[in-house]
């Protein structure tokens, strides 16, 4: 019993972390339909700048804010220079964002040096509680909270405003949305920046989780995020949340019960979901 509880709690926490990773991509890829292979770069920049700001200020809160601001600025630059010319063209998106991904991760080495850097957890969030046989890692509980908070905020914004609708309409027919008097370019820019900010936030929170940041972390986690967005159903936040938790739990259970398959768990999960739900778990309109 304790065992299952342990696996579940840790799987949940990992799932939440993965959800944070995927949240930005749910906006950018799921909703705006931009195949952004540079997402991992934004995420890695969030992680590095978080560690940097923590080192400079000693305040975890400020470091997270700093990372998010970095994400916003990078998001602005990325959208203006890289994404804007290629909306609606997946083939060009792949090429240009992969190129930008190389630039982003290599620039990390220029700015922060080529080595991995240790990421510290603030004292009040480090350590764990042990209750009975169940170990509750403080930072993981914190992640679960933040994940829920992000989910609630984004969901609230998408539900209470027309932004989600406008973006979905804009992806279907950009011209028509403009002909309705909406400055869709601006909307796309802001949504992209929000997605980048979420990526950076995820990076900043991921860093203390694994205790280390390194330039290559971006691509690794970006693939995971793509998996989550696809099996969750393009553009659906509840879908991404559910998919992320599934990925987290599956990873946790598999590693324990079927370790020989744990290397393949994400791929198997994705294949199985797509066979039974070819459109992913949710669709955007159920969001």
């Amino acid at each position, binding site marked *: 019993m304790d065992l299952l509880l342990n696996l579940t709690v840790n799987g949940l926490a990992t799932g939440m972390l993965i959800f944070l990773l995927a949240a930005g991509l749910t906006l950018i890829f799921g909703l705006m339909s931009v195949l952004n292979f540079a997402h991992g770069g934004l995420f890695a920049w969030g992680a590095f700048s978080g560690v940097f700001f923590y080192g400079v200020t000693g305040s975890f809160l400020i470091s997270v804010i700093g990372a998010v601001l970095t994400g916003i600025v990078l998001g602005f630059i990325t959208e203006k220079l890289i994404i804007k010319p290629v909306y609606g063209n997946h083939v060009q998106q792949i090429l240009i964002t992969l190129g930008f991904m190389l630039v982003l991760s290599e620039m990390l080495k220029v700015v922060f040096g080529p080595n991995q850097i240790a990421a510290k957890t603030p004292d009040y969030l480090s350590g764990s509680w042990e209750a009975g046989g169940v170990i509750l890692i403080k930072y993981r509980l914190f992640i679960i909270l933040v994940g829920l908070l992000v989910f609630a905020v984004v969901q609230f914004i998408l539900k209470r405003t027309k932004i989600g609708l406008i973006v*979905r*309409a804009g992806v*279907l027919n950009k*011209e028509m949305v403009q002909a309705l*008097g909406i400055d869709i370019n601006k909307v796309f820019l802001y949504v992209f920046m929000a997605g980048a900010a979420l990526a950076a936030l995820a990076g900043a929170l991921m860093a203390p989780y694994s205790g280390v940041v390194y330039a290559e972390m971006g691509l690794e986690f970006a693939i995971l995020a793509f998996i989550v967005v696809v099996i969750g159903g393009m553009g659906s936040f509840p879908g991404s949340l559910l998919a992320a938790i599934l990925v987290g739990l599956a990873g946790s259970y598999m590693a324990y019960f079927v370790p020989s398959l744990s290397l393949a768990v994400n791929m198997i999960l994705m294949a199985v979901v797509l066979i039974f739900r070819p459109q992913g778990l949710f669709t955007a*309109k159920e969001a």
Partner: protein
Amino acid sequence: MSRLLTLENVHTHIGQYHILQGVSLTAEEGEVTVLLGRNGAGKTTTLRTIMGLNPATSGTIHYGGQDITKLPTFSIANGGIGYVPEDQAVFTTLTVEENLKVAMRKEDEAAMARQDYVLTLFPDLKKFWKKEGGHLSGGQKQMLAMARAFVNDNRLMLIDEPSKGLAPIVIESVMEAIREMKKQTTIILVEQNFSMAAGVGDTYTLIDDGETVQSGRMEDLVRDEELKRTYLGIA
């Protein structure tokens, strides 16, 4: 009565093609101007040029005394111009409700009243309120495209072939609605259904091969069998 919209010798290129080669057009406030012309003449392109979707490469477009030739589409639309495109451009994965919601510039009471009016005009839309736009029938899509423009308080409406695919009885109510709307709104209409064009139009402009070749009062056209035969192949 004053001029709401004037196109002066407008030329439009799309890519390397010279599509509009001198379109001139005026719309008087409170009137319905009908654009006539054969397939591929440039009627749709004219409307798209006004909307800034295919910006004019030369010539000028004035709207309410302002030069809108170079404005971006969304500002033109926000100047109070509603557009019903010929291919409907319904947002396929959005529901009927969401389609209208996206379109609504202001969600105030007046807008809600207009929406209610539109729904009495096209009761099918009310019936399929939660249905995805892509799942509507051809005619229902046409209705939705019109409704999307009607929910806003427009000074000018550009309507591209509204009767296409509609049942005769619906065409009648659309004509009724256009006559009703004329009281506050100026309309430019592209229409192939001559009885409808004649039924609601005040003036006409005939476009061929990207150029304005003739314009005048609708009554004159209806009366002049010769003119009709020459330009429209009908008698």
